């Protein structure tokens, strides 16, 4: 059973007197544990599709199913709850909360839900994540004291903190130099392998596509091809 199913998704943005069709009837299935890259040139609709999967934006038409839930019937609070329980989001510009230190930023998603993990267990888990992303020695630093790569690693740890089924990353390496970008991708791939967390990220970086086991190519709001590397299938 796919963890995410998009059926005939369209998205239109009104731009003054005209409308811009960002997505044109996209259908897509993503399986649990996939490392999915959404590729395409600028303006192809990558960010729009990521926002729709990440429940940040709503489609103009079509159906989105996450797990077994049809998100079109959910209220604002229902979407918030589902986002918290099932999804982890990594932003292009990191979006760390400036008043919290590294440890607190990673801990934050664990403190806002209804499920209260015991404090000791919670802190151990956060420490483990920071170990994984190689920032144990930066626990008490403020985001402003970190480099871009370090901030993005914190964002990865934060996205994984609530143990989501799916991590969505919109161009996670866009603001990083190539070496750091590669490190971040390696990190995400490692977590994907070890924890079987589904990763979906948009990119126009060739290297990411090579690492992915499911690549979706977009152009002008439509899927032009879909490659599932493991199975060697081109759609």
């Amino acid at each position, binding site marked *: 059973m796919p963890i995410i199913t998009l059926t005939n998704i369209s998205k239109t943005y009104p731009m003054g007197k005209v409308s811009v069709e960002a997505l044109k009837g996209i259908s897509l299935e993503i399986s649990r544990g996939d490392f999915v890259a959404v590729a395409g040139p600028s303006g192809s609709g990558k960010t729009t599709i990521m926002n729709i999967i990440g429940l940040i934006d709503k489609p103009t038409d079509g159906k989105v199913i996450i797990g077994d839930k049809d998100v079109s019937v959910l209220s604002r609070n229902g979407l918030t709850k589902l986002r918290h329980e099932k999804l982890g989001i990594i932003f292009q510009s990191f979006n760390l909360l400036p008043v*919290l230190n590294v440890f607190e930023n990673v801990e934050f998603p664990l403190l806002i839900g209804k499920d209260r993990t015991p404090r000791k267990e919670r802190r151990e888990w956060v420490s483990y994540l920071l170990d994984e992303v190689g920032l144990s020695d930066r626990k008490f630093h403020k985001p402003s004291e970190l480099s871009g790569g370090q901030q993005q690693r914190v964002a990865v740890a934060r996205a994984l903190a609530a143990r989501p089924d799916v991590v969505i990353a919109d161009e996670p390496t866009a603001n990083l130099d190539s070496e750091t970008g590669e490190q971040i991708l390696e990190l995400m791939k490692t977590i994907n392998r070890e924890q079987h967390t589904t990763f979906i990220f948009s990119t126009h970086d060739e290297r990411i596509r090579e690492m992915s086991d499911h690549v979706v190519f977009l152009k002008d709001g439509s899927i032009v091809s879909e490659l599932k590397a493991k199975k060697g299938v081109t759609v």
Partner: protein
Amino acid sequence: MILIMALRNLVRNLRNTIIILTLIMLIIAVFFMGNSVITESGRRLMNSYTESFTGDIVIKARSQSSISLFGPNTPAIGEFIPIPVIEQYNEILSLMEQDRRVEALSSQVSGAAVMDINGRRYNVPLFGVDARTYFQLFNDIEVREGQILIPGQRGAMISAGRALLIERETGKKPVIGTPLLFSTMGHSGFKIRELPLVCIYSYKNSTPVMDEIILTDPQTLRALNSIMLASDSDYTPPKEATDLLTGNLDSLFGIEKSTDEIIENGSFSLLDDLTRQFSLDDIETSDEKNPDWNGGSWNFILLKIKEGVSSKALIKDLNIRLAPYSAEAVDWRQAAGKSALLVLLLKAAFNGGLILVGVAGIIAVTNILLISIFRRTGEIGTMRALGTTSLYIFSLIFIENMVLSFTAGLLGIGTGTIIINALNKMELPVANQLLRSMLGQEYFHIEASISVFLISLAVSVFLGFFSSIYPVHCAIKVEPAAAINKG
């Protein structure tokens, strides 16, 4: 975590924090100082009034117009409004004497007259007091010259302030024994009575209003007011005189004798007898003969209640019990009339002005908070994208503003206290007569009270609360997409 975030956000947005803090602090400092002055003056006024002439509770006859110890509160031009007497006075007095919550009581007749002394005229309020109990009830009255009225004695007592005024205006100091001429004009005509000055007194905490009061014996005042006179003397009219009351009225006019014949035959003696007994001269004579003469009508019963007894509760209870007697109990403030209401009016006017300042403050703070929310849209959007609920965002912004307003409140109170203490140390003389009567002191000295402290703190929190409503509303409407657009 939410409190930590709120505090750190305040530090991070230091400029906004300082502006809001300063604004609320100033409003609260003014509120605190103003209310401290008003509360202090209200307290002092209450103490000096209740200990000097109102007591804690006053019982009076029910009336349609508002009546104080000084008479009607609403001036009526061209109309004479008498102060109603307490009907069934003895029954009410007995009830009060038996009430364990009442510590002491006394009775009073009130009126107003024109007083002539040393060739000058003054409009004066007159209190006809029951000398047996009045001076025990009000031990703030201190004798300067002469002696206080004794039961049955005819005479008047004037305040030292009044004596000074008379001396200043006439160049002649009033001395004990000086005749004081009182005249009134009422429904039953023009009345004049002369009384000797028996005492010059002062109150421990005097106010200009209290300096006006002239204390007299009740009978003289009753005569001036043309209200019922009574005596406990044992005079019994002869049977022939009482027969006139029960006889055939027609027979009164059916006598066949002429007036001259009646006078010649001495038949006038019965009427003459009655007239003589009730003529004013004879009453005064009778009064002098009977020093214990205390009967008659009273306008007010003044009560001092025991320590710890709630005045409000007792008034409520008394009003239920006094309803069948057409009487009512009122507090000292109502009994004191317009002079005591002044403080309340000033308080209302001051706080009314402050409400306007508060509204302006709320608008200013709301705007600053809104700017702060707009600047943080990306951050709030990120939190929404991470799965925070509207309640969480609401709580975060709300806590920030509550902490801010609470701190500003404390700083405002602190500032107000420092200014008050500095003014106290300067011992500034209170030159304004109105202020002096309000403050009950010649030098500015204010003690800030806990109640004003708490009220000021509550006002600052309310200010923060109302300022937060719209910004919080805007904050919870921020969508997760803002994290991408403005992150």
